[in-house]
């Protein structure tokens, strides 16, 4: 029983993760990447050992079987985020590739000189640089929506940036610094009102809360498998079918064409048009297994559990003198992400001291350097929780953080 009456049986769940058997590390860097349960890696192994062939075009059973497993994974992803059709799911390497793909292809389709893209100051580099790149290329301009101190966005400010010139809005559904869930439905609606497309970065939100692309009304959504218990090397781009069909391909090569002559080329149907070269079927199978794993526990249970852990971490950290937590001032606004600074201590030293206590957190700008500049902080330290973390691990974090200033020679 992984799920008890009120919450999960964490002991049981942790047994699924070989990592916890062998390591005493309190792994609190889950926003960077998660650990993997046996069920996921065994699914990959099963595919690679017994069902592997190059999907598509093989007439023998093994290849047909490989194709079916790959496509079944696509169906699973489609259901997981409630896409209207499997054809709306494109497999990529990671969220970064998904965002590069949509920036290139959507940008190439709809951007003209003088047009505008709106993104926000909190974005991860992967949801900022591709837009700047395509904007430059097309003679468009990127405008940045500022965030409030608590990590939220003002819909009014957003609307004041929108105009007829706005063609694309690219926005995270959850910042990897603040952990706050953004009400992207409202922002997508406002964007649509001026005829702009809305691209959501779901890298942090998809693993931690229920995502329904149709209810949210977003045109595109990107996320990575590896932040969701799945193996490395597999990511997803969701896109509305009517848009994807009109968009030009991104990478070209094998498997994404219908006909090629020396003078001409006709591209394959969706989603294959966007998947050049041999696909990562094993990765997709692993992602499907991760979705199964998460679905079995239940995303709602996961959210509840993570809120509990977040509360403990948030309250504990907040009570330490000179510790300042970025973003909202309620645990509910943090979804497992506690990014903080300690007055007088450099994040690099903070992380090193915490690492020495066998707790894994991250220091730096977390690929959100512009946000740090906006906040006037060179870098921060981030602890990020996952449902499989324990109260004990959170306590170890709090305990060591409490000791840092004294260790660095401060009286308190």
């Amino acid at each position, binding site marked *: 029983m992984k799920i008890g009456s009120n919450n999960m049986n964490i002991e049981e769940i942790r047994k699924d993760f070989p990592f916890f058997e062998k390591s005493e590390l309190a792994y609190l860097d889950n926003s960077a990447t998660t650990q993997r349960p046996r069920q996921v890696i065994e699914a990959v192994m099963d595919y690679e050992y017994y069902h592997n062939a190059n999907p598509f075009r093989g007439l023998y059973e093994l290849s047909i079987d490989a194709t079916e497993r790959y496509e079944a994974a696509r169906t699973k992803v489609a259901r997981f985020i409630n896409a209207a059709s499997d054809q709306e799911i494109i497999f990529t390497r990671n969220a970064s590739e998904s965002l590069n793909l949509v920036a290139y292809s959507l940008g190439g389709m709809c951007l003209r000189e003088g047009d505008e893209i709106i993104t926000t100051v909190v974005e991860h580099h992967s949801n900022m640089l591709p837009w700047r790149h395509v904007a430059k290329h097309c003679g468009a301009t990127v405008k940045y929506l500022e965030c409030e101190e608590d990590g939220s966005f003002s819909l009014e400010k957003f609307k004041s940036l929108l105009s007829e010139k706005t063609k694309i809005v690219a926005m995270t559904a959850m910042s990897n610094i603040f952990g706050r869930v953004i009400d992207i439905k409202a922002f997508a609606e406002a964007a649509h009102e001026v005829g702009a497309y809305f691209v959501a970065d779901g890298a942090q939100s998809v693993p931690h809360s229920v995502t329904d692309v149709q209810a949210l009304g977003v045109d595109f959504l990107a996320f990575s498998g590896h932040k969701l218990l799945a193996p490395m090397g597999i990511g997803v781009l969701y896109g509305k079918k009517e848009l994807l069909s009109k968009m030009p391909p991104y990478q070209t090569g094998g498997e994404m064409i219908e006909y090629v002559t020396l003078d001409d080329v006709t591209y394959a149907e969706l989603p294959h048009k966007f998947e050049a070269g041999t696909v990562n079927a094993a990765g997709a199978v692993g992602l499907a297994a991760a979705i199964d794993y998460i679905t079995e526990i239940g995303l709602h249970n996961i959210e509840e559990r993570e809120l509990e852990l977040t509360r403990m971490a948030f309250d504990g950290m907040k009570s330490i003198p000179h510790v300042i937590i970025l973003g909202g001032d309620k645990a509910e606004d943090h979804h497992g992400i506690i990014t903080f600074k300690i007055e007088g201590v450099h994040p*690099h030293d903070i992380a090193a001291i915490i690492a*020495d206590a066998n707790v894994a957190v991250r220091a730096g700008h977390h690929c959100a350097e512009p946000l740090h500049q906006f906040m006037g902080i060179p870098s921060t330290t981030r602890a990020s929780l996952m449902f499989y973390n324990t109260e004990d691990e959170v306590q170890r974090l709090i305990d060591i953080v409490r000791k840092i200033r004294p260790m660095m020679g401060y009286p308190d």
Partner: protein
Amino acid sequence: MENRTFYNEILTEHNIHPIYKTKLIEPQRSLRGVNPSCGDDITLQLNVSDDGVIEDGAFFGDGCAISQASADMMLELVIGKKVKDALLLKDIFMKMIKDKVTEEELEMLEEAGSLQDISHMPSRVKCAVLGWRTLEALLKEESDDVSTEDI
């Protein structure tokens, strides 16, 4: 506590109360050194007399305790010394960090020798040597910013 020995009193003292973290009024030479992978960023300033003695020095910038304290200890050590002696000390410091030094050599480094244990922490080596790398470039009159990526 595992960290006690590492963030020792010498280091924390130089970090919280640095002696040379300031700006010279009219620096003869000035050079920036950065550590891209972790964001340490210092600008080192020196005045060298005509007969090759480092007469004055300062640094400013931002970075972890190790990068800041190391730069401070370094300046404390090299100010008043000849350029060639400062470069010799740099060699000894690098040797200490990357390999091993003799008791005698360690003594020559004075307080900077307290960073000896950094050699066991590959991820912090860049922080400890940033000041010294910048010093070397400045003394050899290189004009490009120093980046520890190039080490």
